[in-house]
């Protein structure tokens, strides 16, 4: 479970995250939705202790990220594609992460199989990878510790239609195993197909939160729900928030 409570963060004069609270539950896929610049990535970075929040608290599997003695075994995270040095081979990238977390080398082959990265690519330098292959390597890195919580930042970026369908089934499967899956995306129609719950964000704020079913039944689609809440939010002013459950 991921618990985010009243988190705020400013980057200079810009408020990237503004008093955001939500809970991502075990066994569910929670989508963090919003346009580019909505604050999704900033929030995810705060959740993982990469960025420091100005205020608020975050607990992942009951603790702050940095308080987990072996975080890779509890929380899997994918940011920025693969997160691998461009001149390193995929297997070497996964091996150093495994070494840092005390995970056996054999797990490297397992996760590369899990994400369907072609075997021929395992020993290729990462700079030769397509965007989709970067995403798969990033997901493999997240899965290395077989964690109970998974956080993916725009995982569908760069994937072709076949890859997107694979990802959908893959994320669903992870949640069905009882894991907590949090993903950020600006692809609302895609997220609608996989997420159990969503948090709609704009300009750093939560403008709506609820189950996918309730939002879709109320507005027809997540996209319609987003724009309806965005319009309402603009009307109400900066302090307004919408909640549909």
């Amino acid at each position, binding site marked *: 479970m991921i618990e985010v409570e009243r988190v705020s963060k400013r980057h200079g004069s810009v408020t990237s995250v503004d008093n955001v609270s939500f809970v991502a539950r075990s066994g569910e896929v929670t989508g963090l939705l919003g346009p580019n610049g909505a604050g999704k990535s900033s929030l995810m970075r705060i959740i993982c202790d990469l960025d420091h929040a100005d205020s608020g608290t975050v607990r992942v599997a009951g603790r702050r990220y940095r308080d987990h003695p072996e975080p890779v075994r509890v929380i899997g995270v994918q940011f920025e594609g693969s*997160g691998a040095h461009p001149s390193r081979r995929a297997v*070497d990238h996964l091996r150093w992460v495994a070494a840092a977390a005390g995970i056996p080398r054999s797990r490297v082959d397992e996760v590369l199989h899990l994400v369907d990265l072609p075997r021929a690519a395992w020993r290729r330098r990462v700079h030769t990878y397509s965007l989709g292959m970067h995403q798969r390597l990033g997901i493999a890195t997240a899965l290395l510790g077989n964690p109970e919580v998974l956080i993916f930042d725009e995982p569908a970026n760069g994937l072709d239609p076949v890859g997107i369908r694979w990802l959908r089934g893959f994320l669903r499967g992870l949640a069905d195993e009882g894991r907590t899956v949090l993903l950020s995306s600006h692809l609302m129609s895609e997220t609608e197909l996989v997420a159990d719950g969503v948090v709609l964000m704009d300009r750093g704020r939560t403008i709506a939160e609820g189950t996918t079913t309730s939002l879709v039944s109320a507005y027809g689609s997540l996209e319609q729900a987003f724009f309806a809440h965005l319009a309402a939010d603009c009307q109400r002013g900066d302090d307004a928030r919408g909640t549909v459950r």
Partner: protein
Amino acid sequence: MFWRTLHSEALKAATQPAVARIVVAPLIVCAALTPIAASQVNASLHGAPGAGQLIPGTNATNVGPEIMGLWGFVPVVVGVLLASSEHHGGQWTTTVLTTPRRGQVVAAKAVLCAALNLTLATIYAALVVIDYQTDLGPGDGLGELSVFATGRAPAYLGVLAMAVLYWVLIGLVSLALAIALPSPVAPMVLMVLLAVTADALMLINPVFRFVPTIAGMQMFAPDQGIVLPEHPAFAPLTATLVVAGWALGMTVLAWALLTRRDIGGRRAPTG
């Protein structure tokens, strides 16, 4: 846990082609060029008037170590590369996600950097001994010049040990600088500029003798560079303390900055 981090840092370094190149290439170049430099110096020694005197203050006991200062860019590049490679491909993100205790990452990188530079410097010091001293046979009327024949070997090896220590310390300064500055290029440019402009800096203000690349040379090659009469060169021990102070201070600064830094905070939020 620290050993795991150290192991992972070693794996990172071993599997990054640039690090392998920077470790192997200078050794090959040094191995090729040092004999040439040595033969020139040795020829000068044999041809010089007086008992083995090339210039005042220079004799067979201190030829060789100064070239380790000339090759001092090697530990700088090793240090910078171990840290700056993190700036590519979002690797800092993966590193900090894997080891959220960022001080542990700094410590592991420092140990690895010191070990790598210690190894490189020791190999290179051995090359210096072989190339410079084994060639110093009896000259034209000068008698035996080699430190091994004149009983000065312990002193000579002591000077070389200081040169090795200089490589280790300057590598740590470079590493810390590369962690502190979130840029792969800036630390390298800064360290090279400091080395290249060392003499000019000394003329501007004697306070620049505390710059690590300048003070560091005084650890093992006191004849090198400009020595201002009113500000005599540091004694080797003092110079060592100055450079060690830089290494320690910069490492603490790097740790403090990395701990407080937002790893994704430099870029504009994208989503």
